[in-house]
C-alpha cells in the first residue's frame, strides 16, 4: 500500500513520518522516531506497556494506527523529565521502588501521569482501578500504588 | 478441537428428492454461502474452497473433499472434508455421515453424524466463538438445503423456493463468518442437539 505522510506532535515537537496505513503507532515511535521507551508486550491491548498519551488521554499505542494520530499531541515517557530534572512521578517510582525489570515502567508512568490529572487525590482502590490497564510481572503492584500515592501527594504540594 | 455433532433437519420434499440433492456435492456445497467446488478430480475426489466471513473476520480455506462411500440402500453419504486456511495457520477436518429418512407425512428428514476437528490458530483463539457461529450458520444452511429440496418439486411452493435460492446472499447476511467459520459451516450441517 502506498505510504502516507503523517504529522503529529511528539513531546512538544512536530514530527513528520511516512507510513503505510497499517503501521501501528508503537512501531512508528520505536522504529521510525527512535523513541523506544514504550514497549510491546502482548499486542492484543491487554498489557499496557505501549501506553502513551494522545490528546490528553492514555492510549495503547499498539492498537492505534499511526495515520489515526495525524495532527495529535502525543506524549511519551521520553518527554516526562524536564530541564529541571525528573518529573515528580518518576521520582516517586524510584523512591517507592515501583519498578524492577523496567519493561512496563514507561507505560506505567504515562498512565500514572494521566491518571493523576484525572484523579489528583486517589484512594488505593481508585489507583487499582485507574491503573488496571497496565500489567506488571515483577512488583506485584504494591509499590507502584505507593509510588502513585507519593506522587499524588508531592504533586499537590508542588 | 474436536466436536461430535448430531443433527436432524426436516425437509419439505420427498425422501427421493432429498437423496438426489444430497448426492449433488456441488449443490450441497452451494447451500453454504461462500463455498464452492473448484475441481472435480474424479473418483469422488473434489477440490473446493470456502471463503468464510463474519463481521470483520475472514478466513479462506482450500481443501479436499473425498466421498468415501455412497450407500444407495441406506441413502447415506460418507464424506471427509479437509481444509487448510490459505495462510497455513489453521486447518479443519470433517468426517461426516449423512442420510435421508422418510417421515410419515410423505416428507423426509436429513440426519447427520459428524466429527469436526480444528487445528492451529483457529482452535487456540476461536474457542469462544466456535459453537455460536456454527449455530447461526445452521439456519442459513438448513434454509438453503430445504429450499433446494423444495425447488425440486412442482407448483407454487417449488417456484417460491427457486426464487429464494436465487435471492440467497453470497455471504451470510452480507456479514458472514468468524474465524471458526469453516467449522461453522460443518457444524451448521449438523449442530448438536441439546
Amino acid at each position, binding site marked *: 500500500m502506498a505510504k502516507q505522510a503523517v504529522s503529529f506532535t511528539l513531546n512538544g515537537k512536530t514530527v513528520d513520518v511516512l507510513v503505510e496505513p497499517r503501521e501501528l503507532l508503537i512501531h512508528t515511535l520505536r522504529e521510525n522516531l527512535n523513541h523506544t521507551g514504550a514497549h510491546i*508486550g502482548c499486542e492484543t491491548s491487554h498489557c499496557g506497556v505501549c501506553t502513551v498519551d494522545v490528546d490528553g488521554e492514555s492510549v495503547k499505542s499498539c492498537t492505534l494506527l499511526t495515520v489515526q494520530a495525524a495532527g495529535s499531541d502525543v506524549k511519551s515517557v521520553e518527554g516526562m523529565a524536564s530541564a529541571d530534572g525528573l518529573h515528580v512521578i*518518576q521520582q516517586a*517510582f524510584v523512591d517507592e521502588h515501583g519498578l524492577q525489570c523496567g519493561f512496563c515502567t514507561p507505560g506505567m508512568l504515562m498512565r500514572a501521569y494521566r491518571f493523576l490529572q484525572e484523579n489528583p487525590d486517589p484512594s488505593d482502590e481508585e489507583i487499582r482501578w485507574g491503573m488496571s490497564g497496565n500489567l506488571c510481572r515483577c*512488583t506485584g503492584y504494591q509499590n507502584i500504588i505507593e509510588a502513585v500515592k507519593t506522587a499524588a501527594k508531592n504533586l499537590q504540594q508542588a | 478441537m474436536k466436536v461430535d455433532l448430531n443433527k436432524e433437519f426436516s425437509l419439505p420434499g420427498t425422501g427421493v428428492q432429498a437423496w438426489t440433492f444430497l448426492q449433488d456435492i456441488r449443490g450441497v456445497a452451494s447451500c453454504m454461502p461462500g463455498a464452492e467446488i473448484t475441481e472435480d478430480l474424479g473418483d469422488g475426489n473434489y477440490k473446493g474452497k470456502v471463503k468464510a466471513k463474519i463481521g470483520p473476520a475472514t478466513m479462506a480455506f482450500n481443501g479436499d473433499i473425498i466421498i468415501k462411500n455412497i450407500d444407495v440402500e441406506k441413502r447415506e453419504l460418507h464424506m471427509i472434508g479437509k481444509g487448510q486456511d490459505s495462510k*497455513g495457520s489453521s486447518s479443519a477436518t470433517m468426517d461426516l455421515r449423512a442420510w435421508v429418512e422418510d417421515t410419515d407425512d410423505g416428507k423426509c428428514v436429513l440426519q447427520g453424524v459428524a466429527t469436526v476437528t480444528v487445528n*492451529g490458530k483457529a482452535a487456540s*483463539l476461536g474457542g469462544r466463538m466456535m459453537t455460536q457461529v456454527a449455530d447461526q450458520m445452521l439456519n442459513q444452511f438448513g434454509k438453503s438445503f430445504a429450499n433446494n429440496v423444495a425447488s425440486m418439486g412442482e407448483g407454487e411452493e417449488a417456484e417460491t423456493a427457486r426464487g429464494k435460492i436465487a435471492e440467497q446472499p453470497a455471504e451470510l447476511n452480507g456479514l458472514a463468518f468468524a474465524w471458526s467459520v469453516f467449522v461453522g459451516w460443518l457444524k451448521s450441517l449438523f449442530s448438536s442437539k441439546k
Partner: protein
Amino acid sequence: MDKVADKQEREGSLNGVGCSRKRKEDARFIQGKGNYTDDIKMPGMLFADMVRSPYAHARIISINKEKALALPGVHAVITAEDLKPLNLHWMPTLAGDVQAVLADEKVHFQYQEVALVVADDRYIAADAIDLVEVEYEELPVLIDPHKAMTDDAPILREDLVGKMEGAHSSRKHNNHIFNWQAGEKESTDRVFDAAEVTVSQDMVYHRVHPCPLETCGCVASMDKINGKLTVYLTSQAPHVVRTVVSNLSGLPESSIRIVSPDIGGGFGNKVGIYPGYVASIVASIVLGVPVKWVEDRMENISTTAFARDYHMRGELAADSNGIIKGLRVNVLADHGAFDSCADPSKFPAGFMHICTGSYDIPVAHLNVDGVYTNKAPGGVSYRCSFRVTEAVYVIERTIDVLAQKLGIDKAEIRRRNFVKKEQFPYKTCLGFELDSGDYHTALEKVLDAVDYKGLRREQEEKRAKGELMGIGLVTFTEVVGAGPSKSCDILGVGMFDSAEIRVHPTGSVMARMGTITQGQGHQTTYAQIIASELGITSDEIAIEEGDTDTAPYGLGTYGSRSTPVGGAATAVAARKIKAKAKKIAAHLLEVSEDDLEWEVDRFKVKGVPGQEKTMKDIAWAAYNNVPDGMEPGLEAVDYYDPPNFTFPFGAYLCVVDIDKDTGVTDIRRFYALDDCGTRINPMIIDGQIHGGLTEGYAVAMGQEMPYDEEGNLLGNTLMDYFLPTFVETPKWETDYTVTPSPHHPIGAKGVAESPHVGSIPTFTSAMVDAFAHLDVTHMDMPHNAFRVWKQIKALGLLDN
C-alpha cells in the same frame, strides 16, 4: 561520642549491606532509556519471523518457499533442509536431549518452528510467513502423559528409535526420557507397611508459563571482515549461550560475543536456548547482515519454556500423633516434545528431592519418570530453583492431608515434625544438608501476627452459618544457589559464579559478574556488598553484567543463585582486595599488618588515634607506592564454588473467603514471613517478595495451558492467559526473621523465588481448608471461580 557519631556517619554514607538503597538502574528505566533487545538497532538490520506448525504431530510433505521469496523485501526463507549441510538442524538442549532448530521432516508440537523468513522489516516478514506453503500429513497425537508409555502410544521421537540409553538412565519406551530416583525404596516401603497411619494424595501441578512482559528475542550480527559474531539476546545465562553457540558453530568462543542487554523479566523463560536464536544466527552468518528476531506473545506462550506439568503422588507414613515416619513421592513429568529443561546435568528432575521439606523425615523415596508428549518442550524453573516449587507443593499438600486425617491442626502437625533449630546442619534422608534454619520461631511469629486462634474461631462461626472461609498455612524450605560444582553442572560447566573487581586509583570501583539481572537490582545490591566489604560508597561502584566480552564466565541468574553464588564471589573478591589493601596500609603506616584494625572504610593502627589510611588513600597508593615485591594495582577476581546450597525458608498464611454463588475467591489476607539470611537491601527484598507472591497467586488461582486432544494450545494470548492486574492482586503483608547462612561469606541465602515457591501451596491449602470440614483433602489448581464452583456444586452446597 564524636568518634561514634563519625563512625556511624561514615558507615551510613557507604550505602552498604542492610540499607534500603535506591536502585541504581532506575534512572534509565524511568526515562525510557532502558536498552532491551528489541530496542537495539543496527545498520542494515533485517527482521526474521517464524513459520509455525498448526499441527501438534505431523509429517512435513513439502515446503514451498517460492511465493514468499517472490515478495519484494524478502531475503531468505530458511528450513531444516538448508540447515542440514551445516549440521545445525538439531541442537543440544541443556538437559542432554536434542531439539529441532527447524522441524526436520516432522513437527512434534503445535506452533513448532518450521521455517524462518528474513525480510527488510517486520511488516514484510509477517506478510511473507503467510506465503510459505507447507503441506503436512497428520499423525496421531499424544497429549496425556499417562498414556505416553502404553503399547499403542504413537512414537514421537523417531530420531531416538533404538536409542534406549538416555542421557540420564535407560529408557523403557520410546516416549520415555528418564527414570530418576532418590532415597531408599525398600526401607521406605517397609516403613509404610508397618505404619500406624498412611495417607496418599494424587495431585497435578499444571503446566504454566513464566510469561515475562518482554518476550524472547535476539539480534544476531556476523561481522565477516573480523570474523566476529555478536548476539544480543534475552538470556538469563549469556556465557552458557556463548559456549553452546561455539560448540554448534565451530567458532571459537573468543570470536563470539553474547550480550544480554536489559531484560524485561525472565522468571525462567529466558534460560533456554531457542530455535529462533539459532536460526537468526545462521541467517546473519549466511546473509552477512544483522538479523533481529522477536517473538510475539502467542509464540512466547506457545513455544518457549513452559514450567511444571508434574503429575505427582505424595504419600506419608506416620504414627497416630502425626510424627512422620516416611515419605514416598512418585512423579510423572511431562516434558513435551523435547527435554529442554535447564536442570544441572545430574538432576533430570532438578532438586525434587528437597521434597522432605522442613521436616525431620527418617526415610523417603522419590521416583520420577520423564516422558515425551506432543506439547511444547521445556520444563524450566519458573521463578524457582529446579523443581523446588513442585517439591514444596507435594510435601506441603501431603502433610495437610495427614493433619486432616488425624484431626490435628495444620500448624500443630508442622511443629511436631519440624527439623529443630539445634539439629542444623541437618542432613535430609534424600541427601541435602540443610545449612541453617529456625522453623519454629518463624511459624509462631506468623501465627501470633494473624491471631491464628481467632481466625479459626471465626472460621467455626462462618461454617456454622454455611459460609466458606479457608486458612492456608505453609512452612517451606527451598534449596537455591546451585551450586557446588561437585554435584552441579550445566553441559559439563560447573555451577560456580564469578566476580571481578577493580579499584581505580581514585578509589572508585568497576565490578563485573557472571550473573545477569532481570529486575533483581544487581547493579544496586552487588555494589552494597562491595561497599560494606571495602568501605567505598556504593555510589562510586559501577556494576556490569551480561557482556561475555567483558564479564568473567558465570552460569547466570536463575534458581536464586545470584546472591548465594555471585554475591559470594563478589564478597570473596572484595576480601582479596582488602587483604592486599591491608598490606599496602601496613606499608604506608610503617607498621605490621597485625597492628592494623579495620573500621568501616579504613585501616587504623590499633591504639594510635589518627594513624590510619582510608581505602581511598590505599587505592591511590596501590598505583604508585606499593611494598617491594608487590605488583601494583588493586583488583581481584573470584570464581566462587559454593560448599553447599543455601536453604531459605518461610512461613506463609493465607485467609480466603469464597462466594458460594459464583465460586469467586477473595484473598482476604496473605501474611508472608521469609528468612533469607542476611538482608542486603530490605527495600528490594520486599519488592521481590511482592512480585513472587503475585506470580504465585497467578499460578495458583488462574494460569493454565490447556491442550485439547489434538494438541492445540487453548488460550495463548493475554486475553486468556491469566496475568493478574492491579485489581485482582491481593495486598501482601511481609515479615522476616534472620538466620544467616553459615557457609555464605555474608550469610545471605537468596529471596526472589521463595514467595513464588511458598505461596502456591499456601493458596491451595487455603482453598482446600475452606472445604476441609466436608472431607475435601485436595483440589487441583488453578482455583479459578469456575473450578471452585464445580467443587461447591459437587458438594451440594448450592442454595437450591
